[in-house]
């Protein structure tokens, strides 16, 4: 499936901003499930960009703007071809004991440990115990049970949480958006000894015509490590494995590692932040 993407971020400042240093993680990854056909990053005020690959394999573009400006627009346009569902390999049933045989747990230790957004508090472990009772089965089923549990017992409520909400806070409220769902799922997986990582990307709505007035945003889900298979993606917000409608942009321990746009600047406070995301099937976009 060929999908075209637009992700436009507009910062408006109260007064002049200067010495602005920014990093963006907006380029879709290339892996077995998708190929990034084209990617273009536009920044206004115009400035040279450079890029590097971070520890988690994400492409990071960075740029700085020394001159004073009152508005900063970062626009990423890309086209991604995703592998059709029918050619994707099924995730095998692997017992948890498979972890003991190899060194997978040690190799992925950072995806089992605490991270800023996912403190491994006992509540998350308890929640995972509830989700996995009465007994644990294979690794992938455990992940599905955990995500299904969140899907059933949490309310999807925009604006009930913010960008800084931790997994433990979202668990107390039992509500949030995809970012919180993913963080809670990570906490529950990790407490149960399953290496899991945060995935940032986009999700294309296929049901009904896309509503131009409804704001779209970037999406988030998780990937869990299945011994002998690799990383397998699951979306707790929709309670289903990520398929050809999902475009992966970056992965890391939690939101902090994959912040789509981050940076610092000198000057006045930010007056507004507007995010415009368009995810369309490429043919439809051309028509």
């Amino acid at each position: 499936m060929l999908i075209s993407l637009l992700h436009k971020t507009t910062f408006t400042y109260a007064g002049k901003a200067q010495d602005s240093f920014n990093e963006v993680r907006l380029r879709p990854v290339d892996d077995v499930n998708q190929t990034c056909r084209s990617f273009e990053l536009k920044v206004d005020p115009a400035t040279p960009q450079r890029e590097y690959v971070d520890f988690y394999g994400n492409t990071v573009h960075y740029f700085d703007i020394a001159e004073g400006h009152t508005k900063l627009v970062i626009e990423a346009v890309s086209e991604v071809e995703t592998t059709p569902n029918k050619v994707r390999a099924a995730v095998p049933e692997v017992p948890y004991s498979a972890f003991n045989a190899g060194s997978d747990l040690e190799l992925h230790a950072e995806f089992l440990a605490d991270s800023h957004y996912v403190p491994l508090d006992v509540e998350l472990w308890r929640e995972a115990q509830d989700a996995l009772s009465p007994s644990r089965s294979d690794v992938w089923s455990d992940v599905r049970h955990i995500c299904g549990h969140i899907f059933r017992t949490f309310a999807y409520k925009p604006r009930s949480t913010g960008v800084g909400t931790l997994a433990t806070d979202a668990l107390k409220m039992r509500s949030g958006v995809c970012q919180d769902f993913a963080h809670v799922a990570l906490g529950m997986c990790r407490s149960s000894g399953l290496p899991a990582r945060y995935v940032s990307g986009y999700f294309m709505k296929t049901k009904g015509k896309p509503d131009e007035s409804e704001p779209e945003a970037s999406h988030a889900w998780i990937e869990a490590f299945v011994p002998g298979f690799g990383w397998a993606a699951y979306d707790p917000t929709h309670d289903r494995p990520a398929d050809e409608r999902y475009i992966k942009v970056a992965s890391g321990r939690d939101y902090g590692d994959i912040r789509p746009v981050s940076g610092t600047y000198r000057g006045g406070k930010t007056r507004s932040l507007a995010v415009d995301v368009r995810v369309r099937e490429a043919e439809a976009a051309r028509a």
Partner: protein
Amino acid sequence: MAATNRKQAPAGPKGPSTRPQANLMLSRVAHSLYWMSRYIERAENIARLLEVNLQFILDFQGYDDSHLKEHWSSILASSGDLELFEKHYKTPDSRSVTEFFAFDLRNPNSIMACVYTARENARMIRDQISIEMWETINELYLFLKSRSATDVWVAGPYEFFQDIKRNSHLYQGLTDSTYSRSEGWEFIQFGKFIERANKTARILDVKYHILLPTASDVGGALDTAQWQAVLRSASALEAYRRFYVSEILPWKAAEFLIFSDSFPRSIHFCVAQIDEFLRRILGESGARPRTEAARASRRLLANLQSLTIDEVVEEGLHEFLVEIGVTLDKISEELVQTTMFYPAESTQEEQQLQQQQ
């Protein structure tokens, strides 16, 4: 960013620096050089003021407690620290004032606090100054840290103040012989002369305004001895004697400390240096200055070049000295704002993050 083109306000210098790239200096470095230099000079001048006054009191054994109190109170008042002093000490006497001016860190202008601040500034720019300069400042700091007011009192304050002056002079000599004549040099010299001009004006003001003798005392033994002390506190006694061979006359002493164009601690000499370094820092090349600071310094210099001591006394010496202090503060404040200061609204902000939904 170059220190010379930091400011964007209309009064500031415009356009890129004409200096070669290698000489560009961070405004942070300029700031540290300036304050390092100013605080060392300030520490030295406080040492001078205290030393002279302690000796002066020795000369007048007839002083009783109330005289002493009045004497020290006026010195505290002249430095603007009387209120702070009264908050922490009961009566101003030789010992408590020495402690307050030399060691008390609660007094931001004590010798200890000045040396501490100078050292902190030097530490931030250790890669910019010679190792000898740094070591001198550091040794002065360690020397002060190892002494207490009681030690000083027992061993004799004279030696103590001599040590501080010697260290300050060593630092100045080393700066002179090891620091490149670059933009940084201009900031060091500017800081030094601003502080020195300020302190000379203040020392004069203490004598003239606060220790004002009664009409019958003018020209008497006490008055002459006081003026001699004032000259000594500026290391100016010998220089004065070479200039005016006769006895020490009040107006001559004041004239010498204000108007001498060759004595390096006179206000005129300091302001001439300030004007020169300000001109270089701000890139003022024309006959008519473009910036407020350069205009103020040119005006002050013109006054010091053209006025006579009689005119000044007629208008009021105290008012004249206060006016000089105000002008110097204005000049230094504007230079700091123009070339060294990072505006307060420029604190670093995090770019707002977007939630994934």
